[in-house]
């Protein structure tokens, strides 16, 4: 059981790190764009924010794949597919 708990905590740490550093990166990009008054930099920051939760689902998919938890690989893939369908509908 010990190893399962360690595994669980490491997985949580990875997701937490992605979201935490991603938030600061996207915020910094928007901030720089606002100070410079450059539309495209602000736009890149907004795009980073939108991609961040999607990257989080992709990271979870990779983690489940490494743990050979195929039911959850499929569920994560389904979430990504639904988001992808929305993007295609928007194009």
């Amino acid at each position, binding site marked *: 059981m010990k190893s399962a708990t360690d595994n669980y905590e490491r997985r949580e740490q990875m997701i937490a790190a992605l979201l935490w550093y991603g938030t600061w990166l996207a915020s910094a990009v928007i901030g720089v764009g*606002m100070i410079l008054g450059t539309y495209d930099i602000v*736009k890149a920051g907004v795009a980073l924010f*939108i991609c961040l939760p999607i990257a989080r689902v992709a990271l979870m998919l990779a983690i489940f794949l490494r743990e050979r938890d195929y*039911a959850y690989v499929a569920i994560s893939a389904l979430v990504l597919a*639904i988001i992808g369908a929305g993007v295609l509908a928007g194009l």
Partner: protein
Amino acid sequence: MELSTIFWLFAAAFCASALGGVLGMASGIFIVPMLTLLFGVDIRVAIGASLVSVIACSCGSAAPFLKGRLTNIRLAVVLETATTLGALTGVLFIGIASTSFLYGLFAVILAISAQQMLARRREMIDATAPNVKSWATVLRLHSSVPDSVIGKDVPYQVGRVPLGLALMYGAGLISALLGIGSGVLKIPAMDTALRLPIKVSSATSNFMIGVTAAASAAAYFVRGDIDIDIAGPVALGSVIGALVGARALMGLPADKLRIFFVVVLVLLAVQMLLSALGINILGGLA
């Protein structure tokens, strides 16, 4: 866009987020009324900008919950299939929804939020043995949560998953249509259908909000429906407000703040309802 407008957008989002953070509520529900009523922004533009700030706040606040092992990530990804599907429906539906309908729906959600803010949340923990054939058992969703008082993990079970999925679909739909996190619908779904401990349901709901909002925001972004000049400062103001402002304001009396928010939510509900009917009082001040 004028520099002063950018500053005011940033400042308004910062304040809404900081005040909301004290009560542990997402500021998303204030962003759209703020943009439409104070800044005279078109409601569809306001919805797109608000979604970006909802994502920012969800991602920015997720780390402590994850490290505290309060977020049930398996449950989150299962429910996200329903919230993103709801969001997808909203993305397809918003094109044919009239502006009056959006204002009217927003008024209803504001009224429900006000009512929820007054009501106390109840915990309904199921102590019986897990049903071996339930969805939650098959999907291995039951987990445990650390309890700092007794210093060990307390196991909990996850209740009716199909009902939870149905409610989450609705929450995703409302999120895409109104640009809010729909925590207002997710939390009761998690408390009453799934019967989670309150800390777990708050953490898991917050975790899912980002993906739900990203599903619709990504579609609006590629459509060119997100106004970057508005979304940028609002998202930055919200995330800084949530992370820095809320901590600075922790000393404020929560009970008085709660009453203040209920009054604000009711006033906004009335104004949004009037907007649905084509009457705008506050807009004259901006």
